[in-house]
């Protein structure tokens, strides 16, 4: 079978279509799976993205040439037919389906199967070759539904309402997911770090129902944050920005928090297991459901997943990409 997509210095390249998927260097034509910075990089001439990804992309990359595409609607790039399909990772996150002469490759980008109130649900796309991420490819990782984790955050917030409660999480995707999942339990305002303001607005514009938010920076200096929920990116942890909260209780929301050692190492008091990526079972389930004859694995614990799949009789190869997955 022809190698439709290959690893080059600039990224994953499709020669038949003369385009790159999530290149890490500037190229002519870049097809983008989603808005996280290790996948969407600046400098390319022409971008293609899903319609719901485009506003996030513009926000992140500034003025760019980008063509917006509906879910599942194929478009022609040179000799290939390309289409976007929801990946369930963050708003607008897509798998890229590439077809040439009946040969179908799907690049998953980052994905998950756990229900998420803030983005389109994952769609299984049958293919000949599936390129899968492997961020959490160890069986110790298994996620609960977002609503269960949201309930835990809600309980934690209510356990001590004499102190501010800060949850650290990524500004794009995770923060909005918390705001959407928590809506089941409360209607109280959540206070945001500045880096989350615009991104949250973009989610709202898209019509994602979320808790009301206000910016910490917009509030008077003496505002009492006791009993309030505050969201901030991990970079704000132990920074000067924290000074305005009196003895806050702190937590980190991430898939890595599944493991007690990682929780204690991070210096956060509490860990909430909440990931944008597929857990071990979801990875295997998805790989099986695509019915792909060959699997390429990228970033994460691809070594473990590769051995497991090979023992089940699948053809697996590893791809050394520069994607980072969920950072610790």
């Amino acid at each position: 079978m022809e190698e439709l997509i290959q690893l080059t210095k600039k990224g994953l390249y499709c020669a038949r279509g003369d385009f790159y998927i999530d290149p890490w260097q500037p190229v002519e034509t870049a097809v983008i799976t989603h808005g996280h910075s290790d996948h969407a990089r600046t400098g390319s001439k022409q971008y293609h993205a899903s319609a719901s990804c485009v506003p996030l992309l513009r926000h992140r990359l500034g003025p760019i040439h980008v063509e917006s595409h509906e879910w599942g609607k194929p478009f022609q790039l040179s000799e290939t037919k390309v289409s976007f399909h929801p990946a369930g990772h963050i708003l607008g996150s897509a798998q890229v389906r590439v077809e040439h002469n009946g040969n179908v490759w799907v690049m998953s980008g980052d994905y998950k199967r756990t229900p998420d109130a803030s983005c389109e649900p994952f769609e299984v796309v049958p293919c000949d070759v599936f390129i899968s991420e492997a961020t959490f490819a160890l069986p110790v990782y298994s996620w609960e539904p977002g609503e269960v984790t949201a309930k835990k955050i809600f309980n934690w917030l209510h356990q001590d309402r004499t102190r501010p409660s800060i949850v650290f999480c990524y500004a794009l995707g995770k923060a909005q997911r918390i705001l959407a999942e928590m809506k089941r339990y409360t209607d109280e305002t959540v206070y945001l770090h500045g880096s989350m303001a615009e991104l949250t607005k973009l989610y709202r514009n898209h019509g994602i129902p979320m808790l009301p938010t206000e910016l910490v920076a917009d509030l008077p200096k003496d505002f009492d944050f006791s009993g309030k929920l505050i969201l901030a990116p991990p970079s704000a942890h132990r920074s000067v920005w924290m000074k305005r909260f009196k003895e806050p209780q702190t937590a980190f929301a991430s898939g890595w928090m599944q493991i007690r050692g990682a929780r204690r190492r991070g210096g956060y008091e509490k860990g909430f297991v909440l990931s944008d990526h597929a857990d071990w079972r979801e990875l295997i389930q998805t790989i099986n459901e695509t019915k792909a004859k060959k699997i390429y694995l990228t970033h994460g614990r691809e070594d473990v997943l590769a051995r497991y799949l090979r023992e089940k009789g699948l053809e697996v190869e590893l791809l050394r990409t520069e994607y980072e997955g969920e950072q610790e």
Partner: protein
Amino acid sequence: MKAFTRLFDELDSTTSTLEKVAALKRYFKQATTDDSLWAVLLLTQKISRRVITSATLKKIFLTATEYPEWLMTESYEQVGDTAETVALLLRSLGYARPDTKESETESSLTEWMTNRIPQLANFQTLEEQGDVLLSWWKDLSADEIFILNKLMTGGFRVGVSDKLVIRALSELFEVPSDRVAHRLTGVKNASDITFSEIISKEEITTASNQPYPFCLAHSWASRVDQDWSSEDWCVEWKYDGIRSQIIARDQQLWIWSRGEQDISNSFPDLLKLFEPLRTLNDGTVIDGEVLIVKDGHIESFQELQKRLGRKKPSPAVMKENPVGFVAYDCLEFEGQDLRELPLQDRRKYLKRALKNFKTEQIKISEAHEVKNLDELEKLRSQSRENSAEGLMIKHWHSPYTVGRKTGSWWKHKIDPLTLDAVLIYAQAGTGRRANLYTDYTFALWTEDKDGKRTLVPFAKAYSGLDQAEIDELDKWIRRHTREKFGPVRSLEAQQVFEIGFEGVLRSSRHKSGLAVRFPRILRWRHDKKPEDADSLETAEALL
């Protein structure tokens, strides 16, 4: 189990002592007295029962679930803890009860500790044990499985000090904390005490072999007040032995170590030396240091170590390493608790208690008169030649308090010996250090006949770096590995560290021919090249 698991989770997920005390109080408020007793014993690590080892737990899990061993190993390397790995894998397999579902056979902590867990020992084969465990696991949440696994393997630990547990009990049941602490001292078993006894407001006569909680000292460096007046302070040598209490009550004698171990059996010769105390009068407790004393000379801790862990020492061992004792304090005399008296009065009782002792092996610690801080430093600098590891500085008016209370007792240790050594091997740690290279081996230079210099391993150290340095070094290690031998990586000889330690001794078991005591990293010497590191000859000079 559910309530105890919640308590564990609450203690584990806050750094605030107020929150921890609040969580403890919430638990004790709703728990039965039996469960409360077990919780106290487990949280203060008075008991840990290993019914199975971690290795067996792993085997049982693999057999019961037919799990691929390599996948378990990969998982373990990420997690760094067998009990937790098993809990997470059971959840992934769908065996564990989901958090959202209620347990059908919820059992109390007492039921687990007194019935279920001990039962496991009755089953001989891995298959039988696996059947039992699977039936338990299926009705427990992953968090509860983790706790159960920890309890079964005797590895239960949580980030709460004895002091906080005692404080919670004292506040909730309105009993003075010193009283609670005293009652818990020396307790080894659930049958030793009841929960009502722990929290009783009444004065309860304690068991005759029960030691007092040890009075501990703060580091002199942390002292704020820098005044000195010679008549205030009792300055003694700080010896490096086993801090112990000699207890004579009911015509019997016991030796309790600071680690709350009854070490009487290991030192029958010391019991014999204290024989006069047994019959002297009812109720004498003496605080001091167990040491090896040969021909009037105090030997190193290494010599004492040869006596430790021996249940019944042979006459040869006792002759080779004769035990001795330096007495610091008298806590009870003629059955009276003296702890509230000032030190100067307690010393008088100490002299009375030991006045008929004719042996060279037992001495009362010498109180030095020190006129000023310069003299104090001068005395401290003479510690090594006096077989001491520094000075103890106690206020003459100080009572014998429970634990480490600020103000009246200080320890002023000598600076450690130091050498610059090269990092040559690293191994990943466990627990919070899983997946991080934190166990280091350091080497010194040695020269062969032809003048060729090689590095020979000299000490292992685990502590001394802060988290940022650990992370930085971990990254460096991954990028500068020469070879991997199982979990150990051999490294490019580039990084130099200043290693501190308390002493050097000859050892035939080590490649360098030397063994060091308490090695730890003092500094990362970015400013030094590997060739600047010290040599084995320099280390030998410290012998």
